């Protein structure tokens, strides 16, 4: 167990293993993305209230829900950095932040485009929307903090603390629609009955899109982390060898 844990913390081991995973992850993502997008755009029935704007849900919901996974992931990686000083954990924490920022930004943007015709406004100071905006600024804060501190170790510690503190916002975002009267509707409960609200025709393609976007997130995180490994380990023999061997 401890051997495995120590091995996992080795950037070189992660670099080599993730290189083997990537083609499979790419294949799975492409498949799910093609099926999900085709289904969402062509086969999902028009909603009785919202018409074709329901198709926006198949982008908005996966992106928004995966943006909520970023802060907890960054907080766990930060805790590992603080306790075990594992180098890889901090590299992952560093690479999650910009991805989380983009996911949160896209969730806010698609939500605004959806809200404009349906609610009659692209923005409201509603608990769900406001807490999501706070998450956006927390990501900006983490990225700014990292770039403000020169020493890699000190930056790692500072960002770890901020990630752990900022993760409090995630349950607030999640439950905001239940705790307060909001313009944003609460989470839907799915039904297996085709003749009931939220039938499989609506949620199966959504599940496929969530899977596809999750894979996109994982691939993007792996790619960025591999770059970070090369940069931080550039003086080690294995990276020098890798660079002299590479084509470009």
């Amino acid at each position: 167990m401890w051997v495995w844990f120590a091995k996992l913390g080795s950037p070189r081991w992660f670099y080599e293993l993730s290189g083997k995973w990537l083609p499979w992850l790419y294949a799975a993502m492409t498949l799910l993305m093609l099926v999900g997008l085709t289904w969402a755009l062509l086969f999902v029935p028009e909603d009785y209230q919202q018409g074709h704007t329901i198709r926006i849900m198949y982008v908005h919901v996966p992106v928004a829900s995966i943006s909520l996974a970023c802060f907890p992931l960054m907080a766990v990686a930060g805790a590992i950095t603080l306790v075990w000083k594992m180098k890889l954990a901090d590299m992952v924490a560093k690479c999650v932040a910009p991805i989380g920022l983009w996911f949160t930004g896209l969730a806010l943007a698609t939500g605004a485009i959806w809200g404009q015709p349906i609610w009659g406004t692209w923005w409201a100071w509603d608990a769900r929307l406001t807490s999501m905006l706070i998450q956006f600024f927390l990501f900006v804060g983490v990225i700014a903090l990292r770039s403000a501190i020169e020493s890699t170790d000190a930056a790692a510690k500072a960002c770890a603390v901020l990630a752990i503190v900022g993760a409090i916002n995630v349950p607030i975002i999640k439950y905001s629609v239940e705790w307060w009267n909001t313009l944003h509707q609460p989470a839907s409960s799915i039904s297996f009955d085709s003749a009931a609200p939220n039938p499989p025709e609506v949620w199966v393609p959504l599940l496929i899109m969530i899977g596809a976007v999750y894979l996109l997130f994982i691939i993007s995180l792996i790619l960025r982390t591999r770059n970070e490994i090369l940069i931080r380990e550039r003086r080690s023999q294995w990276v020098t060898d890798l660079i002299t061997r590479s084509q470009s």
Partner: protein
Amino acid sequence: MPTLQFSSLSEFVQMGTYSFHVWVVYLLFVLFVGYNLILPGVQRKQFIRQQKRRVARDAELATQAASRQGLNNRSAE
């Protein structure tokens, strides 16, 4: 079973009255996917190119230093 919701291409493009909203969201999503997959590759290539240049420059500096060292040694003789 899911059935096709559109009978013509123009109907598909129009999306009821929501062509602008639906298509802007999907355009943003495609750009987002592309950005997330392509950017790390570009950064990787940049880094490798920069490292290769650095290695080459270091090697050159080393040979220069070595030849200067050789000249100095000779002049001292």
